């Protein structure tokens, strides 16, 4: 090689170029190293998080709402999974053959289905919720794109309208709105849980990362209701309301010994499974939240008040003229008699007699007895919207009000409250706290309202109501002794008492020798011509009481059952003829 070519071959690099490129490269490396150091060393969470997002999931564990059942375990409310048919508008592709097939499966006319499917052009919408399991299978088999089944939980009420007022219902978000569903919402709802898991490629959960917070399933609720008695009460009440063309009515059945509410039915009624056409009126649990002026059903409390003060005996004779004036009010009797015993005043429901008895007490004394019996106070059943009724303070009573309160006007009560008050006579003076929930047979502390002797004396008077000469002869139950009181109260309309609108009631207990059941019946505005409490509410009472006593297999205690000894074995009690 010549020196000249060697000179040409020699690389002629400026030193600053080398340094510049070298510097740039070095700078780039430092940047990358620095970033790597930062990501791996200082801020690890970012990459870590990205990695975890691939496999880790946070799951919520849903809580299943608890069941509601009657005292024997018959289901009244249950949440069950159902399939609903949803459609995604932009994916939906349905040819006419498939449309016809779908209409047939859903059992709806083709035009309705087409209209429904064409209703929305974007997003998701429901086509039918819920669909039956058979329909779900057939729709899935059709394999229509854009149509899919979604699993939802839905609340069902197998007893339907029979127990609707007591059980209540939930809304779309599974929150109790009325009745027991609302009163015990926290117990029934439970709490949802959470878990953090690692998922594999196929979607299987392979590992828990943190301790599982288990979902607390909703607790089940056993009500005191007896579905058979509830059904009978419902059936008899709706028959009576229809027969007497009444605006409505209520029936309450209480266990006299334990205070449990065995049945509670109202008319008008509603079906909790199908609340498409909501009307607030029929959803009112009238027996618990509506009040009325009790009329003659208050008279036993007047009798108890004077008896316990020793002012009168059941056989004391009172002058009961046909009319009696108090202030500017003329009190009159429907079936007057010149003289009646205290017992007959209750038996014949004498207004004049009741006023005279009540006026022998001071307003404070009479008020105190009513207050002790539970009027003007909450019955304490735990039902949402329960009313305390109205009992005005004795200091505000004018004499005429004192008088009208003797035969049940001027105070307002609910049927539940009234039935609870009668527990004092049924349970020898002791009132048990009410309960919608089934009670274990244990010591329940009751409230002493009257002494046992006074309670029994008043009960004997009420037994006479159901016998000849009494106002409640249609309340008799064959084979059993019944005690109770009828009530026929004029209704207050626009501040005045309507002459032809009544509230007919009857509250009674059986067997009178040792009452186990108390049944209160109220029929609102019977307009079929018959309106006396004994004639309208009485037969309902008799039917429901007869069936309930049979249901509980309580032995008959009527005196007409006589025992007859046979040659061998146990004695046989048979009924001699008769019985109403």
């Amino acid at each position, binding site marked *: 090689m010549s020196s000249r070519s060697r000179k040409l071959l020699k690389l002629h690099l400026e030193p600053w170029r080398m340094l510049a490129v070298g510097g740039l490269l070095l700078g780039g490396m430092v940047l990358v190293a620095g970033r790597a150091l930062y990501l791996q060393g200082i801020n690890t969470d970012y990459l870590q998080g990205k990695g975890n997002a691939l496999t880790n999931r946070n799951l919520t564990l849903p809580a299943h709402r608890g069941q509601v059942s009657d005292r024997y375990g018959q*289901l009244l409310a249950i949440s069950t999974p159902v399939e609903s048919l949803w459609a995604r508008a932009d994916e939906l592709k349905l040819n006419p053959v498939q449309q016809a097939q779908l209409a047939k499966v859903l059992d709806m006319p083709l035009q309705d289905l087409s209209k429904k499917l064409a209703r929305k052009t974007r997003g998701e919408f429901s086509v039918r919720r819920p669909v039956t399991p058979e329909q779900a299978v057939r729709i899935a088999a059709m394999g229509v794109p854009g149509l899919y089944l979604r699993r939802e939980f839905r609340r*069902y009420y197998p007893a339907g309208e029979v127990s609707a007022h007591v059980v209540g219902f939930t809304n779309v978000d599974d929150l109790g709105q009325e009745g027991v569903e609302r009163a015990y919402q926290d117990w029934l709802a439970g709490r949802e849980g959470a878990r953090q898991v690692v998922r594999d490629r196929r979607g299987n*959960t392979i590992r828990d990362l943190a301790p599982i917070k288990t979902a607390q399933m909703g607790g089940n609720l056993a009500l005191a209701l007896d579905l058979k008695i509830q059904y009978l009460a419902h059936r008899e009440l709706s028959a009576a309301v229809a027969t007497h063309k009444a605006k409505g009515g209520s029936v309450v059945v209480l266990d006299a010994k334990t205070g449990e509410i065995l049945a509670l039915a109202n008319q008008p009624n509603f079906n909790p499974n199908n609340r498409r056409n909501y009307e607030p009126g029929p959803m009112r649990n009238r027996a618990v939240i509506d009040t009325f002026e009790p009329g003659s059903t208050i008279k036993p409390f007047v009798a108890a008040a004077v008896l316990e003060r020793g002012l009168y005996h059941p056989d004391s004779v009172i002058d009961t003229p046909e009319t009696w004036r108090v202030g500017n009010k003329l009190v009159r009797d429907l079936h007057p008699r010149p003289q009646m015993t205290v017992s007959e005043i209750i038996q014949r429901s004498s207004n004049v007699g009741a006023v005279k008895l009540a006026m022998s007490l001071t307003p404070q004394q009479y008020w105190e007895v009513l207050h002790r019996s539970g009027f003007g106070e909450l019955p304490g059943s735990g039902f949402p919207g329960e009313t305390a009724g109205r009992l005005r303070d004795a200091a505000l009573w004018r004499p005429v009000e004192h008088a009208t309160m003797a035969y049940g006007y001027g105070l307002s009560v609910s049927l539940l409250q009234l039935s609870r008050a009668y527990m004092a006579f049924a349970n020898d003076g002791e009132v048990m706290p009410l309960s919608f929930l089934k009670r274990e047979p244990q010591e329940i502390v009751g409230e002493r309202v009257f002494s046992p002797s006074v309670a029994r004396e008043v009960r004997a008077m009420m037994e006479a109501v159901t016998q000849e000469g009494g106002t409640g002869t249609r309340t008799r139950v064959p084979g059993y002794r019944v005690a109770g009181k009828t009530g026929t109260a004029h209704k207050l309309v626009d501040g005045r008492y309507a002459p032809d609108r009544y509230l007919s009631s009857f509250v009674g207990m059986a067997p009178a020798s040792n009452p186990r059941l108390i049944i209160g019946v109220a029929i609102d505005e019977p307009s079929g011509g018959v309106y006396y409490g004994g004639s309208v509410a009485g037969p309902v009472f008799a039917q429901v009481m007869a069936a309930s006593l049979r249901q509980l297999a309580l032995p008959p205690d009527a005196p007409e059952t006589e025992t007859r000894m046979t040659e061998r074995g146990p*004695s046989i009690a048979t009924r001699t003829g008769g019985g109403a």
Partner: protein
Amino acid sequence: MSRINIILALALIASALAVVQAQHRSRTYFVELERLKKESRALDEQWGQLQLEQGTWANPARVDALARAQLGLVEPQADRIHVETWTGRP
């Protein structure tokens, strides 16, 4: 020296494989457990549905209507009821 190295290396490999196998078994069992839990939930739901079905069929109103209409049953009148009381001597 190298003998011990080889033995230790083999032991290391063996224990590493054992870890992998244990982890795999653990995951398999976990998947099985999840499957059984899911089955348990499905059975619970099925029980609820059966209860609901039973409640619907045994609805007192339905039974009442069927008893009267299809079977022609009536409530016995008082004169047909014969009450026996047990005086308590077995």
